[in-house]
């Protein structure tokens, strides 16, 4: 029983960051109709930027996290303006190919810049775990969980309560009508992509100190983000949050009780099964945003 609780807690920490990844991707996918295969590379970018800020520039842990988010959002904004905007009326396959190209370029730029050796991000938290009844959690993991929850709440507030969020929801529902009502579609798309990429970078900067940082970490992150999006339903923010938690917990349980070698297979199996049997996601009647 204690073991099960421990797995659930670990799964929750992992799932919180998966949810961050998934929320970013589900917004981009749902709102812009772009299949962003570079999403995981923004996650890797976040991890590397935070590593650079901490280990090389010697900055504060929280400042490094902020820098990573800003870097991810800035590069995402650049991507949208330079590459996706000219292709806005092209087919979904065209933009997908472009984003695959961007992903490959980003990953190998990281490989060139940092080398293939995995790096570990230093963090200021004590390593002795906090014991809470039957379970134990490292302070770093607790911090990651809390911060992920905070970022998810912030994303939700942004979409529900701000003018920008309302424009995003309108664009998701009907792009042309939103444009006629005076919403600047270009601005919304750029903001969405920057926002989504920033969240991915945040997830990378958060998970970076827990795991190792290496150039190909983005590949798996992309696929996990896609499993989360598919679990939750396209453009469904609460769905992505729940989907992320579910995937994190499923992975922990799978690794704990079945085989750790197949941990990453769980995301793949989820993608296949959900798409085959419940393609609109587990939680949604229909595709929607927020």
């Amino acid at each position, binding site marked *: 029983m204690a073991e099960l609780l421990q797995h659930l807690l670990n799964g929750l920490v992992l799932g919180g960051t998966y949810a961050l990844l998934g929320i970013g991707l589900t917004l981009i*996918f749902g709102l812009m109709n772009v*299949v962003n295969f570079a999403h995981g590379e923004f996650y890797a970018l976040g991890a590397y930027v935070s590593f650079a800020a901490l280990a090389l520039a010697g900055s504060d842990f929280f400042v490094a996290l902020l820098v990573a988010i800003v870097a991810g959002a800035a590069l995402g904004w650049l991507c949208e303006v330079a*590459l996706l905007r*000219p*292709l806005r009326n*092209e*087919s*979904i*396959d*065209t933009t*997908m*190919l*472009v984003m*695959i*190209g*961007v*992903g*490959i*370029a*980003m*990953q*190998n*730029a990281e*490989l*060139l810049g940092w080398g293939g050796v995995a790096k570990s991000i230093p963090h200021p938290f004590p390593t002795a775990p906090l014991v809470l009844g039957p379970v134990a959690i490292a302070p770093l993991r607790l911090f990651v969980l809390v911060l992920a929850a905070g970022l998810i709440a912030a994303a939700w507030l942004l979409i529900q309560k701000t003018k920008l969020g309302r424009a995003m929801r309108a664009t998701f529902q009907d792009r042309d009508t939103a444009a006629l009502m005076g919403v600047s579609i270009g601005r919304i798309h750029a903001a969405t992509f920057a926002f989504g990429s920033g969240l991915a970078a945040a997830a990378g900067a958060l998970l970076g100190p827990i795991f190792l940082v290496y150039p190909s970490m983005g*590949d798996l992150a992309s*696929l996990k983000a*896609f*499993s989360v999006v*598919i679990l939750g339903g396209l453009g469904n923010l609460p769905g992505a949050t729940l989907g992320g938690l579910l995937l994190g917990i499923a992975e922990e349980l799978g690794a704990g009780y079945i*085989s750790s*070698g*197949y941990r*990453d*297979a769980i*995301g*793949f*199996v989820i*993608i*296949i099964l959900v*798409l*085959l049997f419940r*393609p609109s996601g587990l939680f949604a009647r229909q595709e929607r945003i927020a």
Partner: protein
Amino acid sequence: MTRTGGWLLVAGALALPLWLPSPYHLHVAIMAGIFGVLAMSLNLLLGYTGQLSLGHAAFFGIGAYTSALLTLKLDWSFWPALAAAVAVAGAAGFVIGRLALKLRGAYFVLVTISFAGVISLVSVNWIELTNGPLGLPGVPAPELGPWSLRTKTAYYYLVLAAVGLSYLVCRRLVRSRIGRALVALRENEPLAESVGVDVTHYLVLAAVVSAAMAGLGGSLYAHYTRFVSPEVFLFTYTVTMVIMVVAGGKGTLAGPLVGAVLFTALPEALRAAASWQWQMLAYGVLLVLLVFFLPRGIVPRLGVALRRPEPVTPTARR
């Protein structure tokens, strides 16, 4: 392409080992041939049905492992192992086709990627069968009757024969009723369906032939490098195939071959100048540039330039 031009190309390909200066160049030609088979295989799906399979390395890897395991563990000889590799990859294509071709676009892509991911993890973790990450060394070189095809020249002709066979299969398929049905589906699925094209049937057929062809490429690869490891499932292989098809011209017969030759020769030529990472970085940038500046590929573009356009149907926009 004119008929004479085609025969000249065949003659040139047959005579190639005579004027290639070194075994290294022959090696590049062999790899170009293997990738030619793979690119043609991907083109059947991406070019003619419009469905992008990003799990194509899985069929390639299944072919490679089937062939390697049968020759190593059961002492099969090369030819039946090759046939089995084609059959097993084709069967995998059938299963994936039946399951995934209910989906379209991005969803199809995701299922194919996930399938490749699962297969790759199995190859790493099922150590009793696959020897895990260490891979299977010592895959035997093929033999033809009393002769061993161990030399590079002999293997070149074997690969060339496979390229020729794959090309003929593609041409036969594409110019038949089936090919017309596939293009009709790509261009306008509801319309094609309304005139009686059985969607699932034709798409699954294309997936089976495509996967079987990738299995052929995998088997040839395994017996050429004489070594198979989980690296055959690398996403890089799939990306390389996609770039070859998109660059050469998807939905054309010659396009994948042009792409394969170009993108096997080019990295080798650049090898001295740049490291592997730079090449991969360049691949990414190149893919972006291709989509922007040459969205239909080299072969259709050449066709326009030579004023003898190969019959290309306009690409579907969805």
